[in-house]
């Protein structure tokens, strides 16, 4: 049973986002890291880059596969998790905490409305 924190919002592509004022913190879910297996490389955008909701903003490479990361929301990248450069395993160990990926300045909060609730995401994961 994968861990799906109640305070986060989710995408169909298995990213999570938390919102603090207009700062959205983004990572991948516990289910995603478990399906990917051991993560060996995380490719992230640079601070200042613009990302667009629904489009790829980076990728995660595991021993099994490389997968794109999809932006849950549009905006400017404020921070990236530099610790993932040397410690990509943080994504496996702590997907919702130390394994976060980027912080983005959310321009339009209404973009968050069509994201999945924890319940909806759980339903999707169970349906897979």
């Amino acid at each position, binding site marked *: 049973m994968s861990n799906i924190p109640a305070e986060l919002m989710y995408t169909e592509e298995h990213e999570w986002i938390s919102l603090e004022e207009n700062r959205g913190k983004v990572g991948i879910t516990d289910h995603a890291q478990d399906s990917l*297996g*051991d993560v*060996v*490389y995380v490719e992230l955008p640079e601070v200042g880059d613009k990302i667009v909701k629904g489009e790829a903003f980076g990728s995660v490479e595991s*021993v*099994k*596969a490389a*997968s794109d990361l999809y932006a849950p929301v549009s905006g400017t990248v404020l921070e990236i998790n530099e610790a993932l450069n040397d410690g*990509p395993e943080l994504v496996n160990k702590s997907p919702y905490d130390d394994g976060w990926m980027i912080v983005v300045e959310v321009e339009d909060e209404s973009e968050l409305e069509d994201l999945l609730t924890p319940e909806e995401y759980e339903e999707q994961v169970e349906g*897979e």
Partner: protein
Amino acid sequence: MQGIPLIFEKTKTGKEGFRLSPLEVPKVDLSETLGEDIVRDEVNLPEVSELDVIRHYTELSRMNFGVDNGFYPLGSCTMKYNPKINEEVAAMPGFTELHPYAPEEISQGTLEVMYDTQNLLAEITGMDNFTLQPAAGAHGELTGILIIKKYLEHKGEKRTKIIVPDSAHGTNPASASHGGFDIIKVKSDSEGLVDIEALKELVNEDVAALMLTNPNTLGLFEKNIFEISKILHEKGALLYYDGANLNAVMGIVRPGDMGFDVVHLNLHKTFSTPHGGGGPGSGAVGVKAFLRDFLPKPLAAQKGQMYYLDYDIPHSIGKIHGFYGNLGVVLKAYAYIKSLGAKGLKEASEIATLNASYLLKKIEDMFEVPEDILFKHEFVVSCNNWKEKFGVRALDVAKRLLDYGFHPPTIYFPLIVDEALMVEPTETESKDTLDAFADALRKIYQEAKEGPDFLKSAPHDTPVRRVDEVKAAREMKLIYEG
């Protein structure tokens, strides 16, 4: 590697396997001539005798596993046996001793084979023209994509997107992206085929092409191919055929008749030339007549009794390989096509499909398998039930197969199937071999039932045991530092 020293570790100072003749010209001080900063004193090369070198590499070569010493059901790779007559043909001095700059008058035999191969491939696939230049599958894909791009530019159309199914080979989006296109993914429906409704929504005037493998990577025939073709063509987009799975349908259906505009073939897979060791391969690309003028140049052509290289290709994307491609591979493929003939090629595909279906029936009770689905030349089963019941994953099953003397199937692909094993037995394997492989899987299933630990530490009998792939990827060491 456990127990196998590196050649560097066999060094004995002063040992050597060569003698240089005495110097016949005045000695030059390298530091003076080349500059001190680029001359190294310590190069740290192994110091070993000739016999040491021979024994070392012979020992390593004996650890190789290939189709010549065992069953190799690596899905999507078509590891069929490569008949040795292919090698004989490719090694004929008339071919090997020909210089690529030799005049056409004395290169007639080679040009004829190139010309014939272009035409044979066109006939097999239902296309009009073929180039033999691309060096391998992904190179063929890029060539095809560049042809499509040039064609659209020529028409004055600005289309920026290429659609690939979520079950596609990873090379498809990579090639399209390398060619400058944005990638859109179309999802599979519950049967594992392209979702027609989703495709309809995606196709518009921005879409340059859809890249499709048929049968697809799940081993399923895209039965809606005519409708797919119509959806694309009605909006002015093209249809690209990834020929990786042609081995299922040779002589039965042709991509050209299904509506494909551009096709690449992996001659090294379907047409039986050695592969899997890094090349060389051949990714011949075929097009319908309206794209002929965009092919790489030159093409082999015929005028009267003479064969020549035709450089008159007005909108050619240019050259994509030195000279004329990997000709040795083309010669082997030619030998294979000529040996089997039309009837033989069709039979090869029939037996490839029969072998896959037979093997699936023998093992399906142990895995999660979609119901009522007819696979073609390969099939995909899921080890999800192993994971849930025994805590054993597809990776563990694959590793344990090594102990039983088999090359494992492809694992964790296609991405849309969890814990996937993708098995392609090919037509060249006997019923005995298929039975032995099924028996090995059944034994492994028993072992899994008895507890996961033994499988989690497999392989046990190979020269190198379980490799730490995570460490290898995270802490890459590419040079020997002594």
